[in-house]
Every structure is written in C-alpha cells, then in structure tokens.
C-alpha cells in the first residue's frame, strides 16, 4: 500500500484523539484519547519501518527492524503510564468525588 494512506490514517486517528482531549471532561475518557494518539503513532512507526524495509531490502534484509522495536518500547511505556495515571485518577476521585477535570481548576489559585 502507498505510504500516504497509512500516514493519513494515522493522522486521522491522532486528530480524533486530540479532539477527544479537547471536547470531553471525563478524566478517564481524556486518558483513553491519549492512548488512541499513542496507537496512531505506533501504526505510523510500523508503516514507516515496512517502507524502509521495502526501500533497502536489496542491501540489508533487516532494515527497519528498529522501528518495530520502538513500537514495542512505546507499548511498555504506555503500560507503565496507564498504571500510574489510573492510580492518580482514582486518588482524585477519592478526594473530590468526581472525575470531572473542571473540578481541578482550583489548582490555578
């Protein structure tokens, strides 16, 4: 498949994630939209790794394998991030009894 299709698909998913962060007030949904953005980037990295492999396969059969390793590490970091982030959201819910991010704007005072 042409690489442009993959880029545009990943961009669409990423922008949907951005819109989700902007329009929702539930902290958990905002967090899920961040996961969506991370996945869009993962898809783009895999597509680029296969593009690199297609371009350089004649000289180096394993060109582009680093891109997929990066995706692996992004998944590792995302899993760690989710565990800590959800713990923070649970703590916030215990303190203010809501997951509405607008409750947190008193931080600015």
């Amino acid at each position, binding site marked *: 498949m042409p690489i442009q299709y993959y880029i545009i698909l990943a961009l669409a998913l990423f922008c949907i994630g951005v819109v989700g962060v902007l329009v929702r007030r539930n902290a958990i949904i905002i967090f*899920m939209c961040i996961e969506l953005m991370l996945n869009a980037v993962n898809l783009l990295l895999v597509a680029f790794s*296969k593009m690199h492999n297609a371009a350089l396969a004649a000289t180096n059969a394993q060109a582009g394998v680093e891109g997929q390793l990066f995706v692996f*590490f992004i998944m590792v970091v995302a899993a760690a991030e989710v565990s800590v982030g959800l713990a923070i959201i*649970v703590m916030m819910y215990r303190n203010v009894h809501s*997951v509405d991010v607008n409750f947190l704007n008193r931080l600015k005072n």
Partner: protein
Amino acid sequence: MGVTQILFWFLSALAIFSAVMVLVSKSPVHSVLWLIAVFFAISGHYILLNAQFLAIVNIIVYAGAIMVLFLFVIMLMNLNKETEPQKNLWMKLTGVVSGGCLLIVLISLVRQATEIKDKIALTNKGDIGLIKVLGKTLFSGYIVPFEISSVLFLSAMIGAVVIGKKD
C-alpha cells in the same frame, strides 16, 4: 482490487468509525468497548503489514491488560450516562473545529511532500516483524533499554501502589 486492499480499507474504516464512537458515546463503558474495537482494527493493520509479534502484543497488552484496567476503574467508580460531565456545545464545537484544522493542515502537508511520493509500505511480505528477528535484535543491540524498561515497570508498580494507597 486485491484482498489486501479490501482489508486495508475495511480496517481503516473500522478504526476511524470506532475512534469517533469513542468520543460520541455518552457512557464511559461504551467508550472503552469502542476503543477495544480500535485496537483490534490496528492489530489487523499490523498483521497486514506482517508485523505479527506487534499484532499479538497489541491485543494482549492494550486490549487485554490496559483496557481491562480502564474497565475496572470505571466500574469501581460506578460511572454511567447520568454522572458523565458534559461540556457546553460551543466548547465542543471549538474543539472539533480546531482538531479538524490540525487534520487539514497535516494532510495538505502529506500531499505536498515529494519524498514519499512513490514509497510503498510492504504488505504481506518481509520477515522483520517476526518474533525471531525482533528477539535477536532486541537482545543483541537493545539490551540496555530493555533492562531500563524493566526498572521503569518496577517504579511504575511501586508508584501506583503508593499513590493508590489509602493514607
């Protein structure tokens, strides 16, 4: 139009539709389920690109572990349609318009780029996504980042316990 093309368009449509449904569904549980659908569609794309290891890891880690964690937290807090906070219509409209502007700018950039004009992503072929090649590369050239990520996991685990503890 071969099977690969049909699958590509089908999975792309499924991914984008599910991603939109994550945003528009009122109940958080429905959002989580639609996000799982997005992850399955992206795993299908990985299989199409012959990145089999990442496809399986994506399903196990994202759809299996992370989304179950989200589901647990949502059910623990008993969030549903009634408790869902809503922004007013103008704020939503502003968010959609600004996100759409970002999308339009980036897509026009992609369409102008000449370097990627005739590049293709190899589908159905190539063995760099197989677990043998990835494992050899990971454990020969990237052993230090791998170990550091294990330390990161340990610190995240301790952090989650410390933050989530009732004091």
